[in-house]
């Protein structure tokens, strides 16, 4: 169907952007929120994939921008998999354990949007990095 005005074009652009948003990573100067999902064997076995897809789904549902979800290897907390680490620009990273689908959505709602921590799910960092 023909597009007949700039406004119409911009509307179509907005929906088209959802599809390509994740390609903007690393290209722009704005700091991004990063959600790291531990997806080593232990994480996958504990259901990290469902966690990951729930995070993506919630981000889309809330139309959040400047946020990306990346999968990483084992974070070392196999006892509490699935693990999600939240990196907010300029803040200490926060690590959450036992993140099932429900808790994943909570992370988005509480931590990212309301800026409140999910106290019951926080894991203490047990090591220092070189």
């Amino acid at each position, binding site marked *: *169907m*023909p*597009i*007949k*005005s*700039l406004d119409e*074009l*911009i509307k*179509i*652009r907005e929906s*088209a*952007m959802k*599809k*390509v948003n*994740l*390609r903007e*990573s*690393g290209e722009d100067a704005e700091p991004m929120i990063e959600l790291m*999902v531990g*997806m*080593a*064997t232990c994480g*996958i076995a504990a259901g990290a994939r469902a966690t*990951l*897809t729930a995070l*993506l*789904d919630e*981000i*889309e549902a809330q139309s959040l921008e400047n946020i*990306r*979800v*990346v*999968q*990483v*290897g084992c974070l070392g907390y196999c006892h509490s998999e699935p693990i999600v680490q939240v990196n907010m620009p300029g803040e200490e990273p926060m690590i959450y354990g036992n993140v099932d689908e429900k808790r994943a959505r909570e992370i988005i709602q509480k931590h990212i949007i309301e800026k409140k921590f999910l106290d019951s799910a926080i894991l203490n960092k047990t090591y220092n990095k070189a």
Partner: protein
Amino acid sequence: MDGVRSHIMVCGGTGCISAGAEDIIDALKAELDKVEYDQEVNVIRTGCFGFCGQGPVVKIHPDNVFYVKVKKEDAAEIVNEHIVKGRPVSRLLYTDPESNKKLDKHHQMSFYQKQYRIALRNCGLINPDDVYEYIAFRGYEALATVLQEQTPLQVIEVIKKAGLRGRGGGGFPTGLKWELTLKSPGAEKYIICNADEGDPGAFMDRSILEGDPHSVIEAMAIGAYATGSNKGIVYIRAEYPLAIKRLQTAIGQARELGFLGKDIFNSGFCFDIEVKLGAGAFVCGEETALIQSVEGSRGEPVRKPPFPSESGYLGKPTTVNNVETFANIPPIILKGADWFSGIGTENSKGTKVFALAGNVKNVGLVEVPMGTTLREIIFDIGGGIVGNKGFKAVQTGGPSGGVITSADLDTPIDYESLKNIGSMMGSGGMIVMDDETCMVNIAKFYLGFTQDESCGKCTPCRIGTKRMYEILDNITKGKGTEEDLAHLEELAPMIKDAALCGLGQTAPNPVLSTLEYFRNEYEDHVLHKYCTAGECKALAKYSIDPEKCIGCTLCAKACPVHCIQGAVKQIHVIDPAKCISCGVCARACKFDAVIKP
């Protein structure tokens, strides 16, 4: 589950496709199917990333990891390790040649660090077959803005103020060209996109059409509106099948969404584009010859004036712009003339795409701001000379340009500076030569090319280039005399002055510039029958170092013409009169005793 969490971008430029990119796409899809990730990970075929020397290239979003030299056998590992477990496959990462470190992000690589992509902005970022991806990156917004808010004269004013100049080689101000067409009387006008890229080693226009065809379509529509035209023609060489296919797909999509056709954006403006295939004659890149060819006549140039802006296609006012010029238009409209004119040098604004080829490590497509030095392009972006040999010269401007030596490597590149050092911008081919390149041979190669491509209409070009080629051929065969050099210098200005079109007027340039900077090589060929670079087979003579020869007889056995004398444990000697300079003895010798010419 409908959330896509990762995009695997596979380069679909001609370079990577011929290196097997299509197989990689199929293999990746098959592997994703196997692990049932096909719904959440998309495999996307994009345009050229530019890093052709390291192709096929695969980039993974959102992790922003850049893989090089990928083979279809690597697909399983990429999927199982990177996609499933989040662990980048380090053996496929690019190794920085200086620090020897593996780099995973493309912006860490020196190849990309100094580049600034305007014309290539979407190449490697979007799927060229999907118009919505182009729209997502502000596609057709410039056209909509222009049609709804600006008059043709206002558009021309923006382009003039931006200082955009023709990227096909001549460097004529684009805004002025548009203005001339707009002001020419007549209701019927045309706009033509020159995609007849013919310089040896140049592939920037092809890559833009393959990677971002909509940017050219959008810009043509803007240009048509500004010049008062309703019909556009893309003249593209038939040797670019992939670019043609993607362009035609894009034109179809643009028509469906109303970016081409009648009453575009409810403005009353009508415009459509037709694709014309050229048979691949170099001279058809010259605008008058191009118009002749579009009209169905022989591709021969005609005298200017009248210029095409007054009397072009079918005798009507016509604008002819190059692909890369067009690709710059939408960003100028969206970001403004001041943004564009803030990039580059005083008289050359914006960026230029170069096709980096020859004896350089990182062969590929680079886009740099005007004013970048050749040293930065060849050594920082290009990574230096293959095999760590010495740098001898770089040829810009293809067969119309000249060579640039190390003395001028620090010249900031723009239209004028290149002319001042005896070369030209041209369409952007950049052929790097190492110290084992014979400059007489290079001149001969280019003359051979122009001689082949001369249309034959005017005598200076038809016969003049032929005579020059013959002289150069004689010199490389050891039959040259000092008089020949004088003849070359006499012929060159005659051809330049008397030829009808740009092809003939610039054809002697490679000879003149090599004569200027490498006269000693010409003299070696003529006076001493000697080719320093060892490239001219007829002049090359092998000899044996008596200090190193132990008399093993291997060379004598290997010699196909039996010109090596000597018995076991005696020093061997080559008879230069019989030697055919095949080099077999040098390869046979285990003691490095054969001295190469």
